């Protein structure tokens, strides 16, 4: 039984080893210059230290949500595209309904003015 999992173990060992080797190599081979900016956790973007209770414009979130929704729509389209032929008309109709509903959402969002920045 347990021997069945041997490849997994092997795979894990190889992965850990590889990561270790790469980290070690970069430690030895790399050239190190320490500056203040470079030692920050994130090299670019926001200042990570300070009050966490910032106020952001809610529009960012709205846009982000829209992005996720339509992103998922696009992702759904890929597997459908792969098995488009076996699914045939049935799949086409189903997908049309799916997209129609999302389009309704888009129309709604648009009509409500959520896409306008100002």
């Amino acid at each position, binding site marked *: 039984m347990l021997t069945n999992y041997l490849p997994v173990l092997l795979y894990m060992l190889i992965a850990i080893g590889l990561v270790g080797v790469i980290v070690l190599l970069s430690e030895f081979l790399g050239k190190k210059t320490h500056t203040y900016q470079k030692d920050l956790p994130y090299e670019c973007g926001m200042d990570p230290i300070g009050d966490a209770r910032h106020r952001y414009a809610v529009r960012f979130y709205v846009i982000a949500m829209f992005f996720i929704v339509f992103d998922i729509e696009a992702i759904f389209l890929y597997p459908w595209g792969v*098995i488009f032929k*076996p*699914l045939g008309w*049935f799949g086409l109709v189903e997908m049309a309904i799916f997209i129609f*509903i999302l389009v*309704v959402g888009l*129309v*709604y969002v*648009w*009509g*409500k003015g959520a896409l306008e920045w100002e």
Partner: protein
Amino acid sequence: MTIAIPTFNLSSIGPWLTLTVAAILILLLDALSPKGRKAYFPQLSLIALAVAALQTWWLWGQSGTDFARMVFLDNFAFYFYLIVILGTTLTVLISRHYLEEWGKNLGEYYALLLFATVGMMLMAASNHLIMLFLGLEIMSIAIYVLAGLFREDARSNEAALKYLVLGAFSSAFLLFGMAFLYGATGGNLFIGELAGKIKEALPLTKPLTLLGLALLLVGFGFKVASVPFHMWTPDVYEGAPTSITAFMSVGVKAAAFAAFARIMFAAFPAFVLEWHMLLWVLAVATMTIGNVVAIAQTNIKRMLAYSSIAHAGYLLVALVAANQLGAVSIIYYLLAYTLMNVGAFGVVILVGRKKDSYLNIYDYAGLGFQHPVLAAAMSVFMFALAGIPPTAGFVGKFYIFSAAVQAGYIWLAIIGVMNSLVSVFYYLRITVLMYMRPAEADLGPIAFTPGLVAALIITCAGTILVGVFPGWFYDLAVASVKIFPAL
């Protein structure tokens, strides 16, 4: 490569389709129509609900499954369709004027109500735990939004946020429980087949199943607002728009109990002793804490929130009884509760006026002299909630407690009856205030709009009719619980 496309019959989910289409239509109309012309959404919703009810009536009597066994077609589900449709219809009726007062007569409101209704139906009819989860989420997400409808109101915001966070948590519990069951049964989540699979794998996976059961209990316990997962209820019920509170208290409860009962009755015969014991404790705690805390409330919405917790406790008693009468009494009681509770909230809306300025129970003093008919209606609802004959509440409680006695849970029935006695105190306090206390000030005019009046007439007449002539509804309920052969 070929893919077998399962055969299915669209008419078996006709009510859902109708409501979904109506909701989408409302959304489109709302987005496309110029501002200020939004008067027809309630009517549209009502028409859609009527059609859905008609479709349910046509479906009545069918049995089996559809959509690759994902969806149950049985009277149990259909009865709940009707209850949920009734609850939504009444909510739509009591909403309009209320929303206009708040300046929130939005298309989204009705669309979300209809979506939530579809989710509830899905919960009642799902034969697969994932479908159940989908239904739960469709319902919950719509209600999170509805609870926060009054964005300018801090309490409404609080309600929405609280309900969202805790609800998400409880959904996670539920999903986690399903995952355990998935593992325990070797990947089968069909509710109808769960019992067999669990039994098959019992020696190997007992702990896994038990953990799954525990998580499911917590998840459902949250949705039906049972103690100790009730913490959200008072705040959310108080903060949410009153019409949505009514909707939550009847619709969500009905749907959650439908799914809860179906899973418990169908899937866990192997652990009957365990879940009976747990639910016994939960039922007692829920009834007691709900009723006792309700006494101390002075805000009527909060009082009704605790009362709703207590009623969940009574329903849990019926669940524990787990016999045919118990199942019947759940269905019957939810019907009765839908009528009487929405009615009570209708009165709360009428008396509340001007953005809910009169929510204290002492605002009801003297109502009996200034608006005798309204007070009489409220008294009917209070009597019904307290379980005083000849109202529907009495018959429902009678069924529940006799089911408990029949199942041998004498003490549970006794505790339940004593709790009913406690509840009489705070329900009748409203009646006493209305009739025996002079008004502190003139209540002023109350706007009796057609929708509210219609809702009050329906609920009031229904509460009495269902209580005086329970036979027909009882027969329907008996026909619906035939699907549980184990009972």
